């Protein structure tokens, strides 16, 4: 068998030319690139929607858009950022890095891999096209609570449902691929507890996706039946139950929240150990913490529904189970800090984003803990305090994790070092603007401004103006990121295989050349 491989002419195995390279590719690096660019484009589309929202909210009164369009913007902003930016970016990073980190030549199921990517542009093409239809796009919030999303929805909701189905298929196929790859294609000697943390984080995430994506598909199918086929799953007038929708949705929705953060945990763990020049502290407790978070995520869903009218015992159960999540999450933060302790620390751009991740994600964790306290949640629920909370865990949390990962691995992918000065400028502008945008939201929320309001009372005006200024600054700053990425692809100092000082000992990807060959690890390395 081995003789066959060695006599094969490797010269023919470069990428195909032109558009067909991208349409028909089964190469994990190409598909990773496609995912990352898709996510980057969606970041600007979803971001533009956020800019519309912030422009309208800059002053009280209706100036720029009408409430109907405003609701379409909040809905699509949420859907695009969750399903079109954060999730595909993590899948893109997984496609690039998992085979290289476990010493595999490619993903286990390359054709499936191609399909799971190309489903995504279809899904989002369908979703975004609804905005141009006469009735407008989905306008019921990204959580699409029935009956607003069924009986009272515009008819374009059917396109939305189809698009969610397609996204779900894409995620499930991607997850099957990742699990299969991790279990079957690790280099000899790489036992489970020797796997890099990013691989662990994705193994857990993939299981979460397989568990909950069918639930999401189920709930949108029930909507489809209610809307078109006369069933009454969520229609009280027909004997249905609108609250059932929320239970099913959040049974998907809460694990989904961790799907959007676990891979970031993996990424920042690698970055912190690299730039502290010290192995990650408490590797096994990091793995157990991620597993605990994943398991707990299935028993906390109703903390999104504390005002829905649950019995006292239910409210208390979901409060306690939610508070429990603070333990593994706290352990992770302590481990990151202990990794930095007595290290030899430098502050390259990926490290800056990771430090900001630890600090700001923890702030999001604190507000999450406050939200878990049921009686206090009666005051916080559905106000800007919640908006502040989940943007802290998703923007300086998930998105910073992705940006940090992009800077960390970009020299490996392209073979060129990015411009460190511009990277630091990008970091500081982003760091300042993200806080100017999202920190004041805590205050307007506590003071009583509900979320998803196109217009608001006068006492919230000053904070909203400040938030809008921060948001515009944040949005513009990301154009700088685009510029840096393109500049790095086109030119830059030649990157060493190791890229970062001492990284050669940290993972197999750093033993490959920068950029790595189109087909890497055709002979699997031996892990000791």
């Amino acid at each position: 068998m081995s003789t066959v491989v060695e006599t094969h002419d490797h010269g023919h195995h470069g990428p195909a030319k032109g558009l067909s390279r991208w349409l028909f590719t089964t190469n994990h690096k190409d598909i990773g690139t496609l995912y990352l660019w898709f996510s980057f484009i969606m970041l600007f589309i979803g971001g533009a929607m956020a800019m519309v929202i912030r422009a309208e909210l800059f002053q009280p009164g209706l100036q720029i858009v009408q409430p109907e369009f405003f609701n379409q913007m909040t809905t699509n902003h949420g859907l695009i950022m969750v399903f079109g930016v954060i999730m595909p970016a993590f899948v893109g990073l997984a496609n690039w890095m998992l085979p290289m980190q476990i010493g595999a030549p490619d993903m286990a199921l390359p054709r499936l891999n191609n399909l799971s990517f190309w489903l995504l542009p279809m899904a989002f093409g369908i979703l975004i096209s609804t905005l141009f239809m006469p009735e407008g796009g989905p306008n019921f919030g990204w959580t699409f609570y029935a009956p607003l999303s069924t009986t009272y929805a515009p008819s374009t909701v059917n396109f939305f449902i189809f698009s969610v189905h397609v996204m779900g298929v894409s995620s499930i196929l991607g997850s099957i691929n990742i699990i299969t790859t991790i279990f079957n294609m690790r280099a000899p000697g790489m036992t489970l507890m020797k796997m890099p943390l990013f691989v662990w984080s994705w193994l857990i995430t993939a299981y979460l996706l397989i568990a909950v994506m069918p639930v999401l598909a189920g709930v949108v199918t029930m909507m489809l039946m209610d809307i078109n086929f006369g069933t009454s799953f969520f229609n009280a007038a027909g004997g249905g139950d609108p609250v059932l929708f929320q239970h099913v949705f959040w049974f998907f929705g809460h694990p989904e929240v961790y799907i959007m953060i676990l891979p970031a945990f993996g990424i920042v763990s690698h970055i912190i150990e690299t730039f502290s020049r010290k192995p990650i502290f408490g590797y096994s407790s990091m793995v157990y913490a991620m597993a605990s978070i994943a398991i707990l995520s299935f028993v906390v869903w109703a903390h999104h529904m504390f005002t829905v009218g649950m019995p006292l015992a239910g409210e208390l159960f979901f409060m306690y189970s939610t508070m429990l999540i603070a333990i593994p999450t706290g352990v992770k933060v302590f481990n990151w800090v202990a990794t930095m302790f007595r290290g030899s620390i430098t502050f390259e751009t990926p490290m800056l984003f990771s430090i900001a991740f630890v600090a700001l994600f923890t702030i999001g964790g604190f507000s999450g803990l406050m939200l878990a306290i049921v009686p206090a949640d009666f005051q916080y629920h559905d106000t800007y305090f919640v908006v502040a909370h989940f943007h802290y865990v998703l923007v300086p949390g998930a998105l910073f994790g992705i940006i940090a990962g992009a800077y960390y691995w970009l020299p490996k992918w392209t073979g060129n070092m990015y411009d460190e000065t511009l990277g630091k400028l990008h970091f500081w502008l982003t760091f300042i603007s993200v806080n100017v945008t999202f920190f004041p939201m805590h205050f307007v929320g506590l003071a009583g401004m509900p979320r998803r309001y196109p217009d608001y009372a006068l006492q919230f005006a000053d904070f909203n103006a400040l938030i809008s200024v921060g948001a515009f600054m944040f949005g513009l700053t990301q154009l700088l990121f685009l510029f840096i990425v393109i500049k790095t692809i086109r030119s830059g100092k030649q990157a060493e295989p190791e890229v970062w000082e001492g990284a050669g000992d940290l993972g197999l990807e750093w033993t490959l050349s920068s950029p790595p060959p189109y087909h890497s690890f055709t002979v699997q390395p031996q892990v000791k």
Partner: protein
Amino acid sequence: MAYIKKVFTKFIFVIPFLFSSLIFSESSDYNMPVGVTEVSESIFELHMVIFWICVVIGVIVFSIMFWSLWKYRKSKGAVAADFDDNFWLEIGWTVAATLVLVWMAVPSTQVMVEAYDDAEGEINILITGHQWKWHYEYLEDEVGFFSNLSTSQEQIDGDVPKGEFYLREVDEPLVIPTNTRVRFLITGNDVIHSWWVPDFAVKQDAIPGFINTAWTNVPEPGIFRGACTELCGIKHAFMPVVVRAVERDEFDAFIAEKVALAEEERLLTSKVWTKDELMERGESFYATNCSACHQANGQGIPPVFPALVDSQIALSDSSRHIEILMEGVQGSAMAAFGDSYSEVDIASVITYTRQAWSNGENGDGVIVTPQDIVAYKNRIDL
């Protein structure tokens, strides 16, 4: 630009005080309201306790982190140690985190038990969320009314200056007596709404097909303003909650007046109405209840909200017109008005929409009277 400058100058001065004001003032624009009830005060205290626990943990963790970043930076020649685990440290902080959580859970449970109490009240009020207004019904006295936003569209559009209570004012607030246990029974008529009064710390979803309960006991008279907090469609931001708490005797007088008014309404049904009387009443009803969707000019916002001008139903099918008003249209945003409004209101708004704009000239000009509505109801009852 002047506006941006004004806001920025303001914030330059605010920033240093931001944290101190959060810390020292009990009630501020930056923090949760203390509220006026015992429950709201307990919740505020709980909120501050949890907040301070988080602050202390944050200060400890971040101090260690930033101190480590400073102390062990490579540019100062720090050499990395090579430890990567410490079993007892891991156990230690896991146990510490658990203890802190138990410390938080105890008062949280106490306050929750205090806030959660669905025993009957002395006064029981049925609150129904409609797109996009609240309906209040005093169950003991069988009187009720709608509470609509009273801020004008001109203020929202910026054509006239905004008033002090912009978007926080209604035509008719809910009135409750002080020092009385008031129970709210909360439900939704169409989609899910959520009834929130921060000063009472009451927020409860208004869900079609469900009746949720909440309660309050307000010690002092006052006007308390809240909002709808569950996305309920286009006018989600435009259906505020306003509650007026008054002394008991004033409340009794208010109820007596409402009961008398309701009696008057019932008498109006049997009165013989002229077209002009119906038109006048219908026009004001239309402005309050219909124009949000069907628009003041009757053109609607097709295809979601159909136009009434030149609609076949408004021109030539008065029996279907009555049916729509009474039963709503399934699968659309058109609600059933039959149970919520008097026969006079329904008849007058049908008459109005059949005569207004160009419909009077183009249609059959049928006048629908309150007696027609009574007849419809009797027919349905059979």
